[in-house]
């Protein structure tokens, strides 16, 4: 039983880690609390479900949902930068709009793709992977995608554009003094972040076998919790990259939830457990002191 739970925790952790990497970009790097995540996660799912039903190759849906997520991120960015709406509100506006947009895209609130080929369930896997290894296929695929996405993000953050992105969150004035448009850099960051989130939504839908409009609710909380847990665990270990820390954070978060369930907590109490866990981590971290001071 512990073994099955362990596999489940790793699967869920890795899946949400892709989303958490996106949240890491906005929350940690850009210092932008981007709530549009609650809408872009199901956006990726809606797009994926519709494309798969239409017979599009499941691998291709990964790229398409990534791109559509980026478009949503750009829109959030434009609302914030061009229309001068506060960051939190821009996200809320986009999240609200996406609810209706997602329904439009999917056509209905629930689209099943159980009988269709997905990246986790297809002929190649059924025919070429030995039976003994089948139960680990989902985990393997998730691991591969998560590692690829992490490495791509690491590479990007080392480019000139990546450095500017990091600079905007830390010291926006510096970016302006370099004669760069900080608004543009923010939009780029939001685009990448939401692309990651939509990709996670795409994978989530393929893994669960159906799209359901309510799956996005609370996505941002899971993302934030993963980022905060991860970065705090490795706070004093400078060798570990932040992106790795976020992935570990996501797995630890899912492990905590699984533990809570194993302890006999009811599923309906999960949000409370999440909140307490969240608070606990914040209290342990220095972060809280810094933020409270900054608010004074």
């Amino acid at each position, binding site marked *: *039983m*512990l073994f*099955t739970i362990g596999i*489940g925790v790793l699967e869920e952790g890795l899946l949400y880690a892709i989303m958490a990497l996106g949240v890491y970009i906005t929350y940690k790097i850009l210092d932008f609390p981007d709530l549009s995540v609650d809408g872009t996660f199901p956006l990726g799912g809606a797009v994926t479900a519709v494309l798969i039903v239409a017979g599009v190759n499941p691998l291709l849906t990964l790229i398409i949902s990534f791109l559509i997520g980026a478009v949503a991120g750009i829109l959030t960015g434009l609302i914030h930068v061009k229309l001068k709406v506060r960051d939190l509100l821009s996200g809320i506006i986009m999240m609200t709009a996406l609810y209706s947009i997602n329904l439009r895209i999917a056509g209905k*609130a629930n689209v099943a793709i159980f009988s269709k080929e997905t990246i986790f369930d297809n002929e190649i896997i059924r025919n070429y992977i030995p039976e003994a290894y089948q139960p680990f296929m989902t985990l393997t695929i998730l691991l591969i995608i998560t590692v690829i996405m992490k490495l791509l993000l690491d590479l990007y953050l080392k480019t000139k554009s990546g450095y500017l992105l990091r600079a905007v969150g830390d010291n926006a004035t510096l970016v302006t003094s370099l004669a760069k448009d900080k608004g543009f850099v923010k939009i780029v960051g939001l685009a990448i972040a939401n692309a990651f989130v939509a990709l996670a939504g795409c994978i989530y839908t393929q893994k669960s076998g159906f799209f359901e409009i309510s799956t996005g609710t609370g996505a941002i909380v899971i993302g934030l919790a993963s980022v905060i847990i991860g970065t705090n665990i490795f706070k004093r270990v400078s060798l570990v990259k932040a992106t790795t820390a976020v992935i570990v954070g996501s797995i630890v978060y899912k492990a905590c939830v699984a533990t809570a369930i194993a302890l006999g907590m009811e*599923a309906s109490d999960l949000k409370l457990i999440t909140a307490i866990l969240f608070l606990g981590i914040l209290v342990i971290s220095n972060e809280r002191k810094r933020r409270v001071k900054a608010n004074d």
Partner: protein
Amino acid sequence: MKKIISVAIMLALTAGLLVGCGTTTGTSGKSKVTIGIGQFAEHGSLDNCKNGFLEGLKQEGYVEGENLEVKFENAQADGAIAGQIANNFVANKVDLICAIATPMAQSAFGAAKNTDIPVIFTAVTDPVLAELAKADGTPNGNVTGTSDKLPVERQLEMIRAILPEAKTIGIMYSTSEVNSVSAIEEYKAAAPAYGFEIVESGISTTADIPLAADNLLEKVDCINNLTDNTVVSSLPLILDKAAEKNIPVFGSEVEQVKIGCLATVGLDYYDLGIQTGKMAAQVLKGEKKASEINFEVIEEASFYGNTKVAENLGITLPEDLVKGAKEMFQTISE
């Protein structure tokens, strides 16, 4: 201080894993079967499904506390939690999962797909659309159950009998519930034959209901409810507003008539649950595999009426309907 808290959390987590492990190994003895019941949302109809399900199992010799252990979880209408519940049942290797309502059924089916855990669903309006069954009604895997498809034609026929003059029927539904959307389509297609026009009003959250109700009540002669989870959860509010305007509200299920809908030709979700429980018992006994049983629909919808509501509205329910009623309610229960 910080260190102490971190250590405490770590210890709690480790202890949790060990405890979780210990308790479940104790119950997996085969003299007793363990089933997981996952319910998508909390309201009367679905609660009845669950109670009926346990009754159905009991009639077949599976009594909770004796030879049956039940793990019950409610997702409170949260899709992500429904998934978590399903995964948890699978990880705990329950002998059977009972899933109530479509998203829960799909989560359970997805989670149990590569295991030998059978999934029995109930209150899924369209199992074919949900891809739990193939177009010919055969299961799409180790999964079967019962559908709560609404008897649309008979409901319209009943409304016509009670309100001979009515022209428009208002239906409120949540855009996020796929069953409601397909029911609306069916009502729209059938209504003209009975001389009705359907006025629909889509909402996205419970918070939209008061305004949508006010708007809808201005335009219609009566309201007809679906088995929409969001709308049914807020039914008392809608009934209040409708009563103020003296507009009758028809239900889709017995529980709704109990709390103040005028009447319905509907399913009894308790009966639906019993039927589902019996299917589950067949699977648990090893008589048949879930993958060998086609999903079932309750054929006989019955008439339920509320005389107190009729009196308040100044409506007399047609005698032949009342005579054939499965149950008439004299009061409005809160």
